């Protein structure tokens, strides 16, 4: 766990010189399994159910990639990481792609040598407090103890926010969402802060979710998206276009239920291109032309993934908000497959 980052750093030293620039797509195909780096457990996003099966929003995107590359969304090995270990794990080759509520930032892109592929959830950092405190705004948090996951953008935003507003606080650093939950519920901290989506997801696991509120202030931009190691453009392309296909499928109304029908009878050329009836888009990224069709069959389009895992009808109950399609007032806007 915590020592893992140390071990991973050590492993990175010892790792033979094959990991960085190799053709990940070929490796994945040869292995017959996709290694996907996810969280240690965040309900709705990436978590294991009672039977040990991984579920969630990020997990479904991993399965989508596996469906495109390997033809089977179940051929995924999930590599759980904390906020601190995720990048080392990716760079040391423990996983092929990172889907872990990860905020796209310049330093991660340029300095940590990752390649970001887009955004699958537009988020922002929020604060959760117990209703008993009677706090209604983040401006009233002077002197509070705040649970904060280390190794995240949120820990830096937190320092900036309290400094800018001239308030004091006690940071209580923790490693995983689970630890945050226990410390927060035990009253070690008054406030839990992380991405607002993560707050909603954590709250859903409380015994008394109604007694906790998420304060109205959102103090940062957290565009969450997948990343791969820098330097393997072909593999980056595969992942980027799987993400775009999932988003575009919703825009054009392709769902897991109607995908076969639409492939047989494409209503318009855009759909024909996505589903591989027209053009050779799959071949361009080293796959076959039915790649996107398999993805949608396996996990559905963006809206389906959202509704199934974190949407209004789930316990987490997130609204689409910014994550609605651009036509519906959101900012979800995929580059066209053409």
């Amino acid at each position, binding site marked *: 766990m*915590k020592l893992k980052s140390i071990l991973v750093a050590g492993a990175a030293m*010892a790792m033979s*010189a094959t990991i960085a620039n190799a053709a990940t797509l070929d490796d994945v195909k040869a292995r017959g399994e996709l290694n996907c780096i996810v969280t240690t457990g965040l309900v709705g996003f990436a978590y294991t159910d009672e039977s040990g099966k991984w579920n969630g929003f990020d997990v479904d995107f991993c399965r989508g990639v596996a469906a495109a590359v390997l033809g089977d969304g179940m051929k995924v090995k999930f590599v759980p990481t904390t*906020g601190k270990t995720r990048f080392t794990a990716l760079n040391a080759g423990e996983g092929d792609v990172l889907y872990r509520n990860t905020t796209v930032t310049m330093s991660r892109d340029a*300095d940590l040598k990752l390649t970001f592929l887009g955004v699958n959830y537009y988020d922002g950092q929020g604060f959760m407090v117990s209703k008993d405190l009677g706090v209604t705004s983040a401006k009233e948090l002077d002197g509070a103890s705040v649970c904060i996951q280390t190794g995240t953008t949120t820990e830096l935003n937190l320092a*900036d926010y309290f*400094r800018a507003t001239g308030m004091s606080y006690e*940071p209580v650093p923790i490693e995983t969402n689970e630890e945050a939950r226990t410390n927060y519920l*035990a009253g*070690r901290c008054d406030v839990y802060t992380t991405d607002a989506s993560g707050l909603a997801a954590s709250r859903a696991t409380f015994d008394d979710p109604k007694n906790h509120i998420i304060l109205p202030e959102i103090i940062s931009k957290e565009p969450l998206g997948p990343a791969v190691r820098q330097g393997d453009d072909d593999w980056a392309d595969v992942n980027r276009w799987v993400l775009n296909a999932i988003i575009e499928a919703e825009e054009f109304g392709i769902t897991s239920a109607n995908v076969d029908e639409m492939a047989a009878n494409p209503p318009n050329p855009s759909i024909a291109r996505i589903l591989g009836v027209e053009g050779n888009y799959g071949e361009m990224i080293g796959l076959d032309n039915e790649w996107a069709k398999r993805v949608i069959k396996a996990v559905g389009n963006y809206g389906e993934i959202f509704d199934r895992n974190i949407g209004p009808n789930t316990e987490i109950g997130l609204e689409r908000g910014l994550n609605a399609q651009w036509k519906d007032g959101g900012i979800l806007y995929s580059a066209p497959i053409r």
Partner: protein
Amino acid sequence: MSAVAESDRPSAGLLSLWYNREARQVIIQIFTIAVVFAALFYLARNAAINLERIGKDLGFAFLLEPSSYDINQTFIEYSSRSSHLRAAVVGVLNTFAVAICGVFLATVVGFVLGVLRLSKNLLMNKMVYCYVEVVRNVPVLLWILLMHGFVVHTLPHPKQAGDIAETFFFSNRGINMPSPTFEPLFWACALVFVAGIVGAVFYKRHAKKVQDETGKILPVLWVSLGLVIGAPVVVFLFTGMPIEWSIPALKGFNFQGGVTVKPELMALTLALALYTSAFIAENVRAGILAVNYGQTEAAHALGLRNNRTLQLVIIPQAMRVIVPPLTSQYLNLTKNSSLAIAIGYMDVTATLGGITLNQTGREMECMLLLMAIYLSISLAISSFMNWYNKRIKLIER
């Protein structure tokens, strides 16, 4: 064994070297060193190649950039605008804090238990035995998590904090106690205190001389206590108690004012001390048992009473057996303190090796620095203990 036979052999070029015992040993040693260095070189080269491939260079300039994160326990001035280097120093000081408190507590508890373990009282003896076996056979990480869980889950919330005379408060945010601010006159007390220590030292010398000359034993302990503690207290009272106390008070979410011992520091120190004390107890027991019983009998025969026997005859000899393993216990405790990260105590592993490493992505640099820091701390402890060991050895006649 058959050195004669070997040198008698006709020398057949290189092979003859192998038949020569000394030469063979040298060859084996050279070979071993070569293998070790080749392995190190291989690892270093791989690391360099891999870093190069992902386009990362080795450099320490990042240490001067602002850290951008806050730390909840700082013994020196620090804010999120301070440098990563300063964050590392804050971490080192926090490591010192647990290490020093832990070593002190572990030593006291360990010595007491070690002596009790030899007690003739069967119940006492067995209780200590159970303590030692239970404590040292459970991994220290579990003790740390357990202690932290205990503090955080069983102590009350600050709003219901327990208190002693409304000046000391206990809650799951830690222990809040008054902190002193010193007025000018206080330094008079400090001066008297120092003078008291000097006086006590001289009195001890004088007492030894008297004892050597006349055999009379003077009450060194009581006089020393009077000089070192009594005198300053009297001065303190007469100068009108020149200390201003800042008393903690609940304000908003937390206690403000005074000093706070965070639950993480508490849990970590207790867990490390508890764990290490079990080992020290065993060292102490072994040390005392290693002193031949004849020594006790001889001391008794000379007319020394029991506690004097222990103090003058047994302990000094036992110390020579106890100190070397004690050193390694101190080293263990210090290194184990890096498990702090499991409960979010901000030691140097958590600042430099945790947040800084993670936010800057400088794994290699941070790990190298961290290793160098722990190595220096360990070497410092070892050399101090070696010095101490030599000092107590000198008494040998």
